[in-house]
């Protein structure tokens, strides 16, 4: 161990800093831990993500890869040093301002790395080309934005613009405003899970199973703890006082925070080690006294279904649960159809690959356990952590840290019960930061799916029936497996009239990683098969593929295969918005392909729909508004903004509902001690459900104010020091807030409203009203396939999405571009193999160079239920991408790819099969 320290002097952001540190320490560690410069983010410690990029003598390097000694005597610039006048005056640099203006920062975790890489470029080349920008930032991964807005921001940095003025009363909804929580993200001051810890916090590490399935026993833990330098505490499941079983769906909760005698997947935690930070970080845990007895593991569902010994003894056959929707006699309808296509599709484990590995800190405040960690679901974290640790819910407080990306995986507990246990047992603050490999091994994944389907059409090209069966590998524990099994049969027909339908999905346990929620809950996998079969069916019917979809699209008033009458269906509008480009792209492809060269152009289209919010079960959000005696308006906003924009969109809705300028609103939370429950950030529900609660609360407070001032509906409201001023035409009145009595929360005026989507349960045939609002979309992909190498280059995607009402078009575009990036990764690159791809150079997500030009088209078909007409957006944006890519590959080459990802060797094999070779 290189714990020996040397005195190192560096010039950091123009200031000479001297520090005693191990010379072989990563520069990133020196900056963050020794110099307190936490704007530099660590995403992988391997040079794969670039989040830790800093400039050394002006040149960008990954600070995780540079020994501190190499930086000694040199100039180091971090994100803290790029603002005006070296950052000392708190002004943002033009580049940082451009990032805000363009919406280039979503979650913000890659932003410091992006800014540093771009700063280096702009210093050498103030007016770069688009290609030069891409080369410069190619070494920084972003999982949220799809990169387009980042490139736009860098290109625009030379033209310092002025941020548009915040909209006035009644003008917020629809305004393209910068994100309200954006400044800390571009300044590098945002506090993510790894960025805060109380003085003297213990460092916590987990001992994890190296086997897919193994029983285990411990040796002499006390002796090891005593004899290992730096180790102060060891904890195992035996130290857990509560019910050591958590899970996002209470009826299925079975996952232990620390395994009890049997570890069911590779990476499952079995023990915790806590001690002083520097020594524990260096500690080699391979000497930890645990003995493993590996079992006969299986990670594929086919093997799981045939296995004698199930993953869980009380789930024989390994089927966790299943879902089914049935209407009419699908088999009979298929038999009677003029055209029938059938097919199969296999998809891979897909990793969320947020650039922020799970991290957090815990401490005790009196008898309350406080946990500040990255999350998408603070109340669920609170309840499950309390359950595991044997505490009352009120004795656990969750203060969400900024989440450096989530995409579904940070709905499930990660560090919370682990650091909670250590803080509770030791009474000392502690912190834990997952290594990238730990994050990859232990976090949830997108379910690998094995799907089969048949779809029929009549002679006129009208879809007659569909059957679909899918097995979803749910891994070792339930997590969101039941949700996937429930959502898939509902959504699998796509947004099309399907008079006869039978869809079934099963969640099957294996010893693979736990599959959970990932943007779309299984729907993207099912859409890959349905939408590729639609292309074959259109061909069988002799119809244009877009026209075939338009003909069959659900219309307002239609009843779905699950028996729900729909309104505000945007599919036709989305498809129509693509038509002009569709025809141009097809004509262009014909010209390119006439040359018969090695590169063939393909054009594909796919559409999607997505039910917003929980399936058939309550998922209320509550928004509280309070006015202080001083005249300040506070919005208690419990919806966690993981980058998608709820900290901006919900205030926008509130501003217009209440009738005030958006600058009047002070946003508080999320924090389980002070914000009511806004549920989880998942299911594309925050804009819709929490936004609706904000709308209701805003209207309620407005009514209160109008009533108190005896003014009519058209009056204008303004908050001022100690008073509210109400103006109606030429008349003006005031409410003197100092004369009102404060409530228990300290507010002289308040409103609290709860909204829960009006849904119904599903009957035995899966019939009912599972969602109150749906989002719709369609995407058009243009790509090139190299028919000799099987490589695919996506050139352009035109994406039309019906968002009902675009509360903030800038943020909506960001969701579309980011969703497409993840859809593209799922289609072409991403395959998580446990034990194999446990880093970000073997598990590949798209870089800036892999992204096409994206044109977003926002369709606003007002929803009667959503707030101001809005529909959810976050998930349906990625659903059409993968199938549209496969359809374009087939259009270009005739190749039918039936296994994702479509890696070059798989595409080439499919091309040869299509050629009959």
């Amino acid at each position, binding site marked *: *161990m*290189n*714990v*020996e320290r*040397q005195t190192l002097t560096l010039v950091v952001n123009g200031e000479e800093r001297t520090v005693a540190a*191990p*010379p*072989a*320490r*990563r520069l990133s*560690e020196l900056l963050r*831990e020794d110099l307190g410069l936490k704007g530099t983010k660590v995403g992988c*410690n*391997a*040079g794969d993500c*670039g989040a830790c*990029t800093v400039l050394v003598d002006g*040149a*960008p*390097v*990954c600070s*995780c*890869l*540079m*020994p501190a*000694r*190499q930086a000694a005597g040199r100039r180091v610039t971090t994100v803290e040093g790029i603002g005006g006048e070296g950052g000392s005056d708190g002004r943002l640099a033009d580049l940082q301002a451009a990032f805000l203006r363009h919406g280039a920062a979503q979650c913000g975790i890659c932003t410091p790395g992006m800014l540093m*890489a771009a700063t*280096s470029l702009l210093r050498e080349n103030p007016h770069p080309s688009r290609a030069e920008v891409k080369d410069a930032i*190619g*070494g*920084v991964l972003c999982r949220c934005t799809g990169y387009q807005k980042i490139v736009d921001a860098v290109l625009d940095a030379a033209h310092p613009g002025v941020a548009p003025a915040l909209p006035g009363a009644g003008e917020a909804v629809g305004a393209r405003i910068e994100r309200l929580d954006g400044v800390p993200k571009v300044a590098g001051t945002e506090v993510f899970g790894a960025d805060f810890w109380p003085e003297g916090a213990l460092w916590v590490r987990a001992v994890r199973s190296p086997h897919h399935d193994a029983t285990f026993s411990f040796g002499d833990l006390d002796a090891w703890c005593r004899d290992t330098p730096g180790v102060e505490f060891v904890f195992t499941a035996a130290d857990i006082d509560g019910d050591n079983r958590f899970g996002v769906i209470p009826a299925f909760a079975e996952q232990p925070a620390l395994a009890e005698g049997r570890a069911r997947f590779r990476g499952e935690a079995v023990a915790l080690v806590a001690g002083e930070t*520097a020594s524990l*970080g*260096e*500690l080699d845990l391979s000497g930890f006294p645990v003995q493993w007895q590996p079992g006969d593991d299986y990670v594929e569902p086919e093997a799981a279904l045939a296995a004698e010994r199930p993953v869980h003894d009380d789930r024989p056959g390994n089927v966790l649960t299943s879902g089914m929707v049935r209407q009419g006699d699908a088999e009979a309808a298929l038999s009677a159809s003029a055209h029938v296509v059938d097919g199969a599709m296999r998809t891979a484990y897909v990793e969320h690959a947020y650039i922020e590995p799970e991290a957090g800190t815990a401490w005790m405040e009196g008898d309350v356990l406080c946990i500040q960690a990255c999350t998408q679901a603070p109340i669920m974290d609170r309840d499950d952590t309390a359950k595991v640790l044997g505490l009352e819910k009120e004795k656990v407080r969750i203060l969400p840290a900024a989440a450096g990306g989530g995409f579904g995986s940070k709905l499930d507990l990660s560090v919370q019960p682990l650091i909670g246990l250590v803080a509770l047992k030791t009474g000392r603050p502690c912190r834990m930061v997952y*290594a990238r*490999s730990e994050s990859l091994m232990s976090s949830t994944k997108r379910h690998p799916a094995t799907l089969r389907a048949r779809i029929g059409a009549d002679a006129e090209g009208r879809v007659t029936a569909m059957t679909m069966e899918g097995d979803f590998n749910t891994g070792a524990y339930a997590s969101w497996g039941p949700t996937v099994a429930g959502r898939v049969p509902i959504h699998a027909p796509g947004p099309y009239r399907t008079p006869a339908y039978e869809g079934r999905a099963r969640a099957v346990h294996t010893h693979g990683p736990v599959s959970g929620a990932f943007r779309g809950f299984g729907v993207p996998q099912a859409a890959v098969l349905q939408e590729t079969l639609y292309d074959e069916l259109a061909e069988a019917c002799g119809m244009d593929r877009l026209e075939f979809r338009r003909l069959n699209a659900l219309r307002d008033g239609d009843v779905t295969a699950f028996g729900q009458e729909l309104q505000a269906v945007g599919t036709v509008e989305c498809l129509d918005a693509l038509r002009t480009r569709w025809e141009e792209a097809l004509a262009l492809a014909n010209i390119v392909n006439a040359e018969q060269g090695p590169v063939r152009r393909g054009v594909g289209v796919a559409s999607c729909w997505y039910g917003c919010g929980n399936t058939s079960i309550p998922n209320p959000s509550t928004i509280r508004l309070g006015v202080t005696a001083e005249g300040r308006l506070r919005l208690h906003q419990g919806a966690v903004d993981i980058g998608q924009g709820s900290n901006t969109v919900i205030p926008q809705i509130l501003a217009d509902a209440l009738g005030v300028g958006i600058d009047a609103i002070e946003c508080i939370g999320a924090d389980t001690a002070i914000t009511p429950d806004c549920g989880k950030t998942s299911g594309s529900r925050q804009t819709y459900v929490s936004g609706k609660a904000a709308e209701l609360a805003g209207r309620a407070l407005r009514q209160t104010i109008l009533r108190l001032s005896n003014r009519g509906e058209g009056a204008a409201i303004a908050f001022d020091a100690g008073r509210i001023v109400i103006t109606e035409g030429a008349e003006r009145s005031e409410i003197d807030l100092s004369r009102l009595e404060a409530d228990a929360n300290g507010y002289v005026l308040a409103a609290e409203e709860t909204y829960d989507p009006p849904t119904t349960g599903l009957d035995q045939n899966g019939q009912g009203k599972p969602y109150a609002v749906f989002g719709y979309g369609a995407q058009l992909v243009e790509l090139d396939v190299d028919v*000799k*190498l*099987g*490589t695919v280059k996506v050139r352009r995607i035109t994406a039309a999405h019906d968002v009902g009402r675009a509360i903030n078009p800038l943020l909506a575009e960001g969701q579309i571009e980011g969703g497409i990036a993840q859809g593209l990764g799922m289609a*072409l*690159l991403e*395959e998580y*193999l446990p034990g194999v*791809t446990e*880093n970000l*150079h*073997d598990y*590949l997500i*798209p*870089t*800036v*160079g*892999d992204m096409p030009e994206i044109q977003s088209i926002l369709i606003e078909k007002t929803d009667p239920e959503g707030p101001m007409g809005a529909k959810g957006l976050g998930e349906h944006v990625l659903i059409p991408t993968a199938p549209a890519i496969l359809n374009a590959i087939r259009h270009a080459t005739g190749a039918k790819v039936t296994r994702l990802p479509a*890696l*070059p*060797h798989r595409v*080439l094999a499919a091309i040869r099969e299509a050629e009959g070779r």
Partner: protein
Amino acid sequence: MTYFRPTELTDAIDWLADNEARIAAGCTDLFAAETGPSLKGPVLDVTAVTAMRKIERLADHWRIGAAATWTDVLRADLPVAFDGLKLAAREVGSVQIQNAGTVGGNLCNASPAADGVPPLLTLDASVEIASKSGVRTLLLQDFITGPRQTALAPGELLTAVLVPEAAGAGRANFVKLGARKYLVISIAMVAVRLVELEGHVAKAAVAVGACSAVAQRLPAVEKALQGEPMVAGVSVPVTDAMIADALAPITDIRADAEYRADAACELVRRTLEGAVT
């Protein structure tokens, strides 16, 4: 002392003789394989050794210091015969990696997919190895002995890559095939260098990486190219068998063996055509 960063080569070699140390330069591979916050030591950091950083033209050869970074290579004034090496330098990881990662590190790490090896093979490169007992040189193909294996003995330090004067002639090209654009480990890559005499190929050097345990020159292909007109179509006499015979591709997460074999053939042709057009 567990971390030594000398400026003089003799100091480095003396220290290495007395310490069983890891030799560190850009650390882009060392730190990537390290789970803790520091490199485990003892560490000999060679990045301050001036003699190991320079890229220079000497009397009868070019000398690329082993601690020269890929960015140093990109910025060096070198003849067009080195263009394949420069194209490879651009494909190493990302700008950040090119600013830290070194030519010598790339060779000592001995990954079958090392981007620097095929172009250096086409430049007939050798390596200079120093130790307390003196300096020896080895042909590059003899230095890398297997995946993650080199001929470097304990106490020895790779100090430079040497390219003979004759290899500075001709035109060069390099093509890398990966599953994504940046930060990607090659599925296959090809480097070529063609020396022209009166419009025909006087000498051809062709190497393929990531399709065998160690990147390989393709002697049969080189022989077939000799005398061909240096115009589009130069690759016509090259048969798949000439390429496949020299390679032994494996199946891994990036591609299967059959694909690699096919892709190598296609890439060899494209890299050759790219070099003459």
